[in-house]
């Protein structure tokens, strides 16, 4: 379902934009307003992160946001309520991103039921590799949710093929080694890696980790289908507030 939606969008646009926010950071009201700004700026897809105390794959910006959200009292149930409210209120697909322990403690099936009822399109769980899936992708798929998997520059071709088989919606291509938020060199190497990703799957490709400015987005045009702006949106939110996010995003994608 998610893939079909993206394909339709890709008829009119050659590159979609996905943004990210941490639920409960700095508070739920700011999250609501930020999503409003994102949608008004023309964002195509929004990733909502349920905070976790041990976000191993995240760099300093998103790590702090996780901690601050938890310190401000963001509970999983409240995050899911707000996710449902956002999905009902805005006409873009929303994805849930979180670490596996949150899903595991909630119960994989119970979480999948909850996401389906909330009108969420799919889920990204970066510390749940295919080897540990234990029924997870099937449970999501049965409920019309896309289990979104990641490629990295260190993934072999054979592994990419295997991941592509169990993934749905799109594949999230991590642009480089390292955690979220650090600088990425948008180079020939990255282009070659993206070409390798393209050969490995028929699914649309999203590229994230270090996408910060208009030139990065332009670089991705023709090589990927979705540009993911994660940490940079948070930085802008911290420095320029909610309205700054809208202006920043419009600057990224203005024709």
């Amino acid at each position, binding site marked *: 379902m998610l893939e079909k939606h993206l394909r339709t969008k890709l008829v009119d646009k050659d590159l979609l934009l996905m943004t990210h926010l941490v639920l409960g950071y700095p508070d739920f009201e700011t999250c609501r307003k930020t999503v409003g700004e994102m949608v008004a700026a023309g964002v195509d897809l929004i990733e909502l992160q349920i905070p*976790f*105390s*041990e*976000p*191993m*794959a995240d*760099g*300093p910006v998103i*790590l*702090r946001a996780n*901690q601050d959200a*938890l310190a401000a009292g963001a*509970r*999983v149930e409240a995050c899911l309520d707000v996710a449902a409210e956002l999905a009902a209120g805005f006409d873009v697909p929303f994805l849930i991103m979180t*670490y*596996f*322990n*949150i899903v*595991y*403690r*909630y119960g994989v099936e119970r979480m999948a039921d909850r996401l389906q009822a909330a009108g969420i399109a799919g889920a990204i769980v*970066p*510390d*749940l*590799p295919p*080897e*540990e899936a234990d029924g997870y992708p099937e449970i999501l798929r049965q409920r019309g949710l896309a289990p979104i*998997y*990641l*490629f*990295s*520059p*260190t*993934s*072999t071709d054979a*592994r990419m093929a295997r*991941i592509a088989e169990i993934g749905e919606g799109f594949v999230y291509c*991590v642009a480089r*080694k*390292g*955690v979220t938020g*650090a600088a990425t060199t948008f180079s020939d190497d990255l282009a070659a890696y993206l070409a390798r990703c393209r050969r490995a799957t028929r699914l649309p490709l999203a590229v994230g980790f270090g996408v910060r400015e208009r030139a990065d987005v332009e670089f991705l045009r023709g090589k990927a289908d979705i540009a993911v702006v994660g940490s940079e949106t948070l930085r802008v939110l911290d420095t320029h507030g909610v309205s700054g996010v809208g202006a920043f995003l419009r600057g990224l994608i203005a024709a």
Partner: protein
Amino acid sequence: MDSQGYFGRFGGRFIPEVLVATFEELDRAFDELKRDPAFWQEYVDLMSTYSCRPTPITYAENLTRHLGGARIYIKREDLNHTGAHKANNVMGQGLLVRRMGKSRVIAETGAGQHGVATATMAAKFGLECTIYMGEVDVERQRPNVFWMERLGATVVPVDTGTRILKDAINEAFRDWVANMDTTHYVFGTACGPHPFPALVSYFQSIIGVEAREQMLKSTGRLPDRVYACVGGGSNAMGIFQGFMQDDVELVGVEAGGHGVETGEHAVRLAASDASLGVAQGYKTFFLQDEDGQMRETHSVAAGLDYVGVSPILSSFKESGRVRFESATDAEVVEALALTVRKEGVIPALESAHAFAGAFREASQMSNDEIILINQSGRGDKDIFTIADAFDDPKWRDFIRRKAAQYDA
């Protein structure tokens, strides 16, 4: 253990995609090393010339008489170079790093023992070294930070999360995902993603292998019970492996902190406060809230102050092969004081948990029974922490005068 690194329903490998290739490389290197018939001897030779292996067992005659029950023996891991069993794992992984041809090592450290041991290994093997240490631990373990820096390591204070061991582990992983081509992560305990629990236990098994042989030689039989403290679980795994197939009761003693009922402790297996979860790359019992957020832990011993526990020990808890107990901060300080006075050996606060657990039971046992306690580390180099735990007024005066000299 199955091929995915599970011990019963515990363990596994929950890692980001970018690390998968690195772990596969580590799997291969560890397999090759285990299959190489010359490797174990190379390791034993290194440990007998660079550290103090085999470490002796000591008959604690005075404690035995004082407690009036089982005969007490102590395995002296405190006599290792750098003062703890941590050296075993670190030197073993150092040999592995040489085989893999990497030029840099990183490690997490809580109390600082594993950090100092890793920095020592890096100095000896000519490797670049970065140690991640929670800001709280940097504050309370300055002497260890001093030595790590003298040994040439870069110590990075971690100011995220609860600013202790688990946060240092997260930060080390963040370094590794960016630098895995040149860098090996020297994991310090029998936790983390597969193959670390098995890898660390493999090197630590040298403790149990020696201890079994030594007990047979000096007492003519095996001990009835073996006690070890349990933080992550590496020293316990080390000594327990020597007696797995024998009719020997194995007892792990966790950090009871201010008491299990206060919630300020690090008891994952001996009580029902912990629940099954997945964090830091593996599945085990964690001290967490109902949402799955990790809780704060407490122990007088920084080395036991950890939210998770070895998946191998979790499987032994479930199978009943190991019995788990806990000892409070107060009991531990008392056991430490008694051991120092009666035997003239100075256990680390971590190791003193094993002594406290053993003392509680020794007097109920008969004098033809034998117990063996793993003294995983020495306490004399942690003088700042232990003097505080003893609340020693003369030490406080000394520190005040010393501080005044710096201000003068």
